[in-house]
């Protein structure tokens, strides 16, 4: 069971966009922005509030890659694997991150809930490839060594 405060937050977010079916995606985006994931209970709640079926809300949430029903870490690291980054060797950076954090293609989030590692198809900073994004901050010209240093730095802040 989610704490009552979650529903209050959801009400506030629903208020921003209005109780109509077309508000579904922005509401889910803001809920995820708040909690770094989309709690299933709030999806059900939102669906009821804006007048769409739970099945429809679920189908939309699972269609778009950005929505996650799993809680994400404090730092969401999105490694860019767009063409420009790929050509400038982005995969070794991802591998270095996996190795440093004990993650893999199947396991995206560290047990201490500090880091989530994902790939993304382009961050729009191709001029500085290879890049990655930590939450909303883009880091340019990365390398396996730099990314390990970055993780260590973030870990210091996160503790």
């Amino acid at each position, binding site marked *: 069971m989610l704490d009552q405060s979650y529903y209050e937050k959801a009400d506030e977010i629903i208020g921003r966009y209005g109780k109509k079916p077309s508000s579904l995606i922005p509401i889910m985006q803001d809920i995820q922005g708040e909690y770094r994931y989309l709690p299933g209970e709030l999806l059900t709640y939102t669906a009821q509030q804006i007048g769409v079926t739970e099945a429809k809300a679920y189908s939309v949430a699972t269609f778009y*890659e950005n929505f996650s029903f799993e809680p994400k870490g404090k730092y969401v690291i999105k490694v860019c694997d767009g063409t420009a980054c790929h050509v400038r060797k982005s995969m070794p950076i991802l591998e270095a991150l996996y190795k440093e954090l004990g993650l893999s293609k199947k396991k995206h989030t560290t047990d201490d809930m500090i880091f989530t590692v994902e790939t993304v198809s382009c961050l729009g900073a191709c001029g500085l490839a290879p890049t990655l994004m930590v939450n909303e901050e883009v880091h340019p010209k990365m390398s396996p060594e730099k990314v390990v240093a970055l993780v260590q730095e973030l870990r210091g802040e996160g503790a």
Partner: protein
Amino acid sequence: MMISNKAELDKCREAAVEELQSYGCRILVCSGTGCIATGSEKIYQKMMEIVGNTPNVTIEFAPHDEKEHVGVKRTGCQGFCEFGPLVRIQKGDKVVQYIKVQPDDCQEIFDNTVMGDGLVDRLLYKKAENTYVQPDEIPFIAKQTRVVLENCGRFDAESIDEYIAAGGFKALEKVLFDMKPEDVVEEVDQSGLRGRGGGGFPTGRKWKQVAAQEEKERYVVCNGDEGDPGAFMDGSVMEGDPFKLIEGMMIAGYAVGSSEGYIYVRAEYPNSVARLKHAIAVMEERNLLGDDILGTGFAFHMHINRGAGAFVCGEGSALTASIEGNRGFPRTKPPRTVDHGLWAKPTVLNNVETYANVPKIILKGHEWFRTIGTEGSPGTKTFSLTGSIENTGLIEVPMGTTLREIIYEIGGGLQEGSEFKAVQIGGPSGGCLTTQHLDEPLDFDSVKKFGAIVGSGGLVVMNTDTCMVEVARFFMSFTQRESCGKCVPCRIGTKRMLEILEKIVAGKGEVEDLDKLEEIAKSVKDLSLCGLGKSAPLPVLSTIRMFRDEYMEHIVDKKCASHTCTALRNYYINPEKCKGCTKCARNCPVGAITGEKKEPHTIDTAKCIKCGACIENCSFDAIEVR
């Protein structure tokens, strides 16, 4: 200042121009995504601090008195992303371009160039013994023609007053007061402007079709879901000149009789979303958006929708489905978006760059527009130039510019003097152009002839170290992942094609695989429902056509000449260089390396898993990949 009628707009423009001219000096800090990533926000803050702490100098819009008036501004992308953070110091017509500026450099720049007339030599761009002071002298910028990007890097991206001072909303004023909606459609039609999102459909014809609908409820939608990996032009326009995009959409709204505009922006562009939101809020505050704009009775309201990570939403019908709150599934056409778009109403759907072209066409006329570019594709095109190229960045050139001019004159040639192999144009829906196309003029029609598309304008340059089979696999893995799954040819076809490509790069390819690939590609291309599926096989078809030998080498000889495909690499130890230090043997995870101490070692290729640990650990450069 409210702008509720023509007189107030004129007054505001006068005040804004006067304000702009009153600056003794403007410090223009690039605030594009690239420069923000390299730390330009710190430069901005530092400059604000320095200017704020200097006696007898005021910043921004404070009363000027007798003091020196210096502006510190965040601009849109100055284009030269590779050399960020970029800072320009502007005094009247004189502009100094500094590159790779760090916070510690700010005081020196301020003392020398802002307060004095000196330069900080080490922060100037240098190339082949030349030093460049003015940005327009730098070959990368000098060779470009900036129409869409003309304000980017020169004005504060967040200031409506600077936009107005730069001539903003003059086109809107012209259409609202001097033109009938049908004149606007006609002007755009005559200009020959074609959709910059990739398809190249004539914009005027689209507007005409919407304007002719019986249904009066109509929508104007902007596709800012720039999903092609390796493309960032639209993002740069949205964050660098948001007012211009909105002005273009408003003109479209007036032309086709719509009062609602939607911009669909990719989720990965937080800066674009923030700047557009800000621009809309400011315009609403000033009465430039809303009901009764400039007292003419014309109403226009803007909405922003953020994407949620689905490439297919760049397709028109999927995009409108997403705005409506549904899964981003494309639907069967006809009916087309112009008849049956957003909320099943007639809809003008254009891309960011297309709208951004409109204000200038209105102001300067279609004849002017047709003086740029080629007969069939007038105007300019923005490209994001990336990959193995010396100068990566955002460029804008007339349609019909050759690849050679783009790569060698603007791009400065290949990185570290490497050799040109191919350029991928049009992203995952496009194809490859090679040395034989270097001197062909690039426009919508010519590129199509070579089996590729201009697409949204991503140009990824590849050198001879790039494996084209792996590139084809990379794009196929992208489209396969992004296939929405609605229609069978795309859902299953891309999967099967990906499997074959994976087999080939793993060294398990068979000769008949190429025929199979081509056969499936044809079905996917012909039978898929939407543009994503129809174009998904293009990179594969184009690489097979241009680089068949390379495919054969992977399949028959089991070799990858560029050593990109891990499974096809073979590691050897050069006995003349090996000192027998045993470091590689100790670090080999599978024990494939043997040898006596102080004697040359050998690798058992049967055991070797090709992880590369030995190379990383060899201090004598003795390990070779063949």
